[in-house]
C-alpha cells in the first residue's frame, strides 16, 4: 500500500490544500476558492479510487486510520457534498468577510470529516470530530448571526464532550482506543455498553439535531453563510448518523440490551434504550415539521426540515433491523443530496436577490427556471415522493415500522411525512411561484458554474430514485459486515417485510402517464398566454404584484392551532438567562469590592473548612 493514495494522504493533503488555499486567497480570491474546488474534487476522486482498499489500516503518527465500508460510504457522501458546494465558493468570495479564512476552514472541515469517518481509534475520531466543530464554528459567524455560532458550539461541545467522556471512560476500563475492540469489549458488559450507548448516542443526537438538541440547526443553518448551510445540513449533520450507527449497530446495542420485557402482553420490538432513541426521533419529526411549517425564512425552513429528517434517520438506526438501518442509510444519502440541493438553490436565490425572507420573494420561476427545477427535485425527494431517492428510504422505513407494529412512532412518521408536503411546498410557492415582485424584474438565472453542482445533485437524486439498488447493494454489504442481514434486492426490485417495490417500474409508469398527459395537452387547442397580473380578482383592478402574492404566514390557520405550545427555544433561552443571573449573583456576592463583606465570607469559609474537616 503506497502512501500516495491512502486515507492519511487524503487527510494530510486536505490540510495542505487548506493552507495553500489560505495563502492563495490572500493573492487572489478566486484562485483560493478554486483550490477548494480542486482540493475537494481530488479528495473525492481519491476516495472513490480507494473503494478496493476497504478495511485497510494505516497510521499517521499516533493516529490510526481504518477505512471501514460505512466510513467509506460516509466519506464519499461528504466529499460529494463538499465538492458540489465548493463551486459556489467562487461566487461568494466577495460576500464573505474573511475569504481566506473561509477557504482554509472549509478544507479543514473537510479534512476533519474524512478523518473522523476513517479513524481507527476513538481518540482520532474525537480529534477530527472537534476539528469539524471548530472549523465550522468560525465559518458560521461570517453569515448573519454571531450568536448562532455560540449556540452551535455549545450544543456541539455538549455532544462531543459527552463522547469524550465515554471514550475515556471506556479507555480506562478496556485500555484501548481502538473503535472495534472497545465496542466489542463494551458489548460484553452492560454498564460499559450503557455508558458507550448514552455518551456516543448523545453525540450523535446532538450532531444530527434530534429533539431536544435540535435548536442549533435552525440557528446555525439558517444564519450560516449561504454556501455553508448546504454543508451543514447536507453534510456535517450526517456525522450524527455515523455516531448513532456506532452506538447502536456496531456495538451493537440491540443485542446487548436485549430483554424479554413485555408490554401489554407483547414482546418489545427492541430494547428500551433503543426505544428512547425512537421516541426522541419521533418527537423531533413532529417538532421539526411543525416548526418548519411556521418558518418565515427560506433557510430556516430547510433547517427545521433537517430536524425532522434527522428524526427518521435516528428512528431507522434505532429500530436496528436490516430494512430500517438500510432505510436510514438510504435516507442519509437521499437527504444529504436533497437538502444540499435545496440549500444551494436557496443560495442561488440569495446570490441574485439578496434575501431569504420568503415574503419578499416570489415568481422567480420566470427568472430562474433552473434553480426552480433543482429545488423542485430536491423537495420531491425530501417529501418522499417517487421517482426521487427520498421515496425509497421512506418506503423502507415505513415497511420496517409497520412490520414492527410501532403505532405511535409510525403516527409521528406519517405526520412528518404528510407535514413535509406543507413545508416543502411553502418556499416553492412563496419564492418561485406566485407573483414576481417588480424589484426582481431584472433578476437573472444563476451563473453557469453554480448551475453545474445543482444539476449534478438533482440528477443524482433522480438516478438513485429510479435505480436505488446501485446504492442499496453497497448499503446491504455494510449491513452484512455490521452483523445484520442484508437487504433483499432482486434486480430492480426491493423487498420489504410486507411488500416489494420496483422504483424503476414506478418511474417508468409515471413517465408513461406523463407522456399520455402530454399528448392530451398537445392535441387540444393552444392556450392564450396572459400576463401574471391578469388573474381573477373578482374583477377588481390591482396593480401591485406584491399584494397579489400570498406568502406571509402561509399556513396561518394551522399555525394558530399550536402557537401556544411549549417551546424548546424559550426553554433554552430561559436556561441561559438563569445561568447568566447565577453568574451575576456570584459576581455580586463574592466580588463586590467591599472588604468587610469579603472578609465575612472568608471567615464563614474558614469556619466551614474547619467544621467540615473535623467531621
Amino acid at each position, binding site marked *: 500500500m503506497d502512501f500516495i493514495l491512502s486515507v492519511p494522504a487524503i487527510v494530510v493533503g486536505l490540510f495542505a490544500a487548506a493552507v495553500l488555499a489560505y495563502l492563495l486567497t490572500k493573492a487572489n480570491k478566486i484562485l483560493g476558492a478554486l483550490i477548494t474546488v480542486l482540493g475537494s474534487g481530488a479528495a473525492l476522486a481519491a476516495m472513490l479510487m480507494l473503494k478496493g482498499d476497504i478495511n485497510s489500516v494505516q497510521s499517521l503518527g499516533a493516529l490510526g486510520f481504518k477505512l471501514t465500508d460505512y466510513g467509506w460510504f460516509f466519506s464519499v457522501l461528504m466529499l460529494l457534498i463538499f465538492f458540489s458546494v465548493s463551486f459556489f465558493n467562487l461566487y461568494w468570495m466577495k460576500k464573505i468577510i474573511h475569504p481566506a479564512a473561509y477557504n482554509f476552514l472549509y478544507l479543514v472541515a473537510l479534512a476533519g470529516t474524512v478523518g473522523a469517518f476513517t479513524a481507527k481509534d476513538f481518540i482520532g475520531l474525537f480529534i477530527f470530530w472537534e476539528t469539524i466543530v471548530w472549523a465550522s464554528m468560525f465559518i458560521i459567524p461570517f453569515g448573519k448571526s454571531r450568536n448562532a455560532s455560540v449556540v452551535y458550539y455549545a450544543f456541539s461541545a455538549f455532544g462531543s464532550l459527552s463522547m469524550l467522556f465515554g471514550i475515556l471512560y471506556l479507555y480506562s476500563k478496556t485500555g484501548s482506543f481502538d473503535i472495534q475492540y472497545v465496542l466489542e469489549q463494551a458489548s460484553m458488559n452492560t454498564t460499559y455498553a450503557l455508558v458507550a450507548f448514552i455518551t456516543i448516542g448523545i453525540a450523535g443526537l446532538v450532531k444530527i439535531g434530534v429533539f431536544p438538541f435540535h435548536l442549533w440547526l435552525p440557528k446555525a443553518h439558517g444564519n450560516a453563510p449561504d454556501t455553508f448551510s448546504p454543508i451543514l445540513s447536507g453534510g456535517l449533520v450526517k456525522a450524527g448518523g455515523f455516531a448513532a450507527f456506532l452506538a447502536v449497530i456496531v456495538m451493537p446495542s440491540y443485542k446487548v440490551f436485549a430483554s424479554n420485557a413485555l408490554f401489554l402482553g407483547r414482546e418489545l420490538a427492541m430494547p428500551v434504550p433503543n426505544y428512547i432513541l425512537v421516541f426522541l426521533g419521533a418527537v423531533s419529526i413532529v417538532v421539526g415539521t411543525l416548526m418548519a411549517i411556521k418558518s418565515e425564512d427560506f433557510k430556516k425552513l430547510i433547517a427545521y426540515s433537517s430536524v425532522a429528517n434527522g428524526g427518521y434517520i435516528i428512528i431507522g438506526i434505532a429500530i436496528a433491523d436490516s430494512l430500517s438501518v438500510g432505510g436510514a442509510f438510504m435516507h442519509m444519502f437521499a437527504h444529504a443530496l436533497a437538502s444540499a440541493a435545496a440549500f444551494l438553490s436557496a443560495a442561488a436565490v440569495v446570490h441574485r436577490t439578496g434575501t431569504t425572507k420568503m415574503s419578499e420573494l416570489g415568481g422567480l420561476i420566470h427568472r430562474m427556471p433552473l434553480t426552480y427545477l433543482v429545488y423542485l427535485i430536491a423537495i420531491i425527494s425530501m417529501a418522499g415522493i417517487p421517482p426521487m431517492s427520498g421515496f425509497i428510504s421512506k418506503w423502507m422505513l415505513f415497511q420496517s415500522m409497520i412490520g414492527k407494529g410501532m403505532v405511535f412512532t409510525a403516527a409521528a412518521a406519517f405526520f412528518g411525512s404528510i407535514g413535509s408536503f406543507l413545508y416543502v411546498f411553502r418556499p416553492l410557492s412563496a419564492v418561485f411561484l406566485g407573483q414576481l415582485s417588480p424589484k426582481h424584474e431584472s433578476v437573472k438565472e444563476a451563473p453557469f458554474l453554480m448551475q453545474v453542482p445543482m444539476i449534478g445533485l438533482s440528477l443524482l437524486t433522480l438516478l438513485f430514485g429510479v435505480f436505488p439498488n446501485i446504492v442499496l447493494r453497497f448499503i446491504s454489504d455494510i449491513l452484512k459486515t455490521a452483523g445484520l442481514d442484508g437487504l433483499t434486492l432482486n434486480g430492480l426490485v426491493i423487498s420489504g417485510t410486507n411488500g416489494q417495490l420496483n422504483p424503476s417500474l414506478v418511474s417508468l409508469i409515471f413517465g408513461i402517464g406523463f407522456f399520455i398527459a402530454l399528448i392530451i395537452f398537445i392535441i387540444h387547442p393552444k392556450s392564450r398566454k396572459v400576463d401574471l397580473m391578469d388573474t381573477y380578482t373578482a374583477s377588481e383592478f390591482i396593480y401591485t404584484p406584491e399584494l397579489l402574492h400570498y406568502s406571509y404566514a402561509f399556513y396561518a390557520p394551522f399555525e394558530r392551532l399550536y402557537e401556544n405550545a411549549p417551546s424548546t427555544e424559550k426553554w433554552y433561552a430561559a436556561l441561559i438567562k438563569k445561568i447568566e443571573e447565577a453568574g451575576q449573583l456570584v459576581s455580586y456576592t463574592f466580588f463586590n469590592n467591599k472588604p468587610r463583606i469579603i472578609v465575612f465570607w*472568608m471567615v464563614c469559609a474558614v469556619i466551614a473548612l474547619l467544621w467540615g474537616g473535623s467531621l
Partner: protein
Amino acid sequence: MNTSFIILLIAVPLGAAFLSVLVKKLGKYFLGAAIGFNLAASGILAYDYVSPVIYEIGGFKPPYGISLVLDEYSLLGILLLNVVFALIAIMACKYIKKYEVVLSVALAALNGVILTGDLFNLFVFMEISAIAAYILTTMNKNIKYTFNYLVLGTLGSGLLLFGIAVIYNMFGSLNIMDIQNRMAIISYPVAGALVLPLALIFTGLSVEAKLLPFSGWARGVLKDSNSLVGTLIVSAFSAAVLLAFGRLIDSLFVMSDSLLIVFTVVTVGTLILAEIAAFSKKNLREILLFSSIAQSGLVVALFLQGLKSAALLVLINNVISKMILFTLAAKIGEDNGTDKLEDLKGVFLKNKVLGFGFTAAAMSLIGLPLFFGFIAKANVLVSLFEANNIWLPMVILIVSVIEGAYVVRMLTTLWNTGEEGELAKAEDAKQYKLTNKVRLTIIITIAAIAIVAAGILPLLQMNDWFNFDILSFLTDGLGGV
C-alpha cells in the same frame, strides 16, 4: 552542574532591585539584565539537570538552614515563570517605567516561591511577591481596589503564617522534607491533627491563588488593569502561587477524607461558579479574569486529587494562553478606551496576526484538538478516569461547555462585524487603535505557534500522548539533550 545558579535566580533580581534603587536611571537595564540572567540561568539549569538538587544556603543542613529545592517540579516552574515573565515584560515595557524595582523584587520573590523548600521562607517570599503585586496594582489608578487587595492579601498571609506556626508547633521544623519525614514516624493519626493548620494554609494560599470565596480582590484589581499588571497577576503570579500550592499539597497535605471533600468542594465550586460568572460577563478582561479564577480552581482540585502531571499541564496551558489573551485584551482595552465585547466587533479585521494569536490561545484554553489545551484536557480526563473518578470529569466537561460558549462568543465577536441578523461585512468595521504592535505581534505569534505545535506534534510523535508524565518528560526530553 553549577548549583549556585539556583540561588542566583533569586539573588540576581534582588540585586538588580537594590541597584535600581541606587541608580534610578539605569533601573530599566538592571531589570532587563535580571530577566535575561534568569532566563539564561533557568535554561542552563534545565540543560544540566540530572537529578533533584537541594541547595543549602550558607551550607547549613536542613532542617536548620534555609534550603532551595530544584527538582523536576520546580525546574518546570522556574522555566515557565521566567519565560512568561520575560515575555510579559517585553510586551508591556512601556508601563515598566518607575516600577523597575518592584518588578525585580517580584521576579526574585516568585522564583523564591517556586524554589523554596522551607515553609517560613515560602511565607516570606509569598509576602514579598504580594507586596510587589499591591504596588503594581496602584498602576490602575484606583486605590480603593488596591486597598481591598491589600486587606485581603494581608488577612490571607496572616492565616498562612498562623497555619505555618501551628505546623511548627507540631513538628518542630519548617523544612518541608523534614516535616514529611517527621510525619512518617509520628504516633498519633496525622490527618486528624492537621485539620487546623491545613485549613489555615489552604485559606491563606487560596487568597493569592484566587479561589472562591477568598478572591474578592481579583475583579476590582484586574478588570481595569493594564497589560503589564493584569497579565502578570493572571499568569506569572498565579503560576507561582499555584505551583507552591501544588508542592504543599503534594508533600504536606495529609488529609482526612472529610477535609479532602471540603477542599474539593471549595475548588470545584470555584471552577463552576467562576465559569458561570465569566459566562455572564460582557467585558473582555472581566471574562478572562473569571476564567483565570476557574482554572485556578481546576488546578488546585487536580493537585488535591494527586494528579500532579495533569495539573501541571492545565497550569501551563492556562498560563501561556492567559498571557496572550490578557495582554491582548488589556491592550485593546487601553487603546480603545473600552473592552466591552459589543464595542469591539471586528477588531481583529485589521490586526489579523494578533487575532490568530488570540484565537489560538483561546482555543487552547477551551481545549480544542490540534491545540495544546486538548493535550492537557485529555491528560486530565485520562488520569482522572484511571483514578476511578467519574464525577470530576463530568463536572469538568459540563463546565467546559459553558467555558466554550463564552470563549466562542468572544472570538466570533472580535473577528466579525455586523449586528445580529445582518451579514458580517468588512466595510462595517470601526477604526480600532492598537499601538506598539511589533513586539506584541512577534511574541504572540511565537507563543501561538508554540501552542499549536505543542498541540499537533504529540499527536504525531507520541503514542501515549494522552497519558504522559510531564515531569519525567522534562528530564528525559530536556535533560537528556
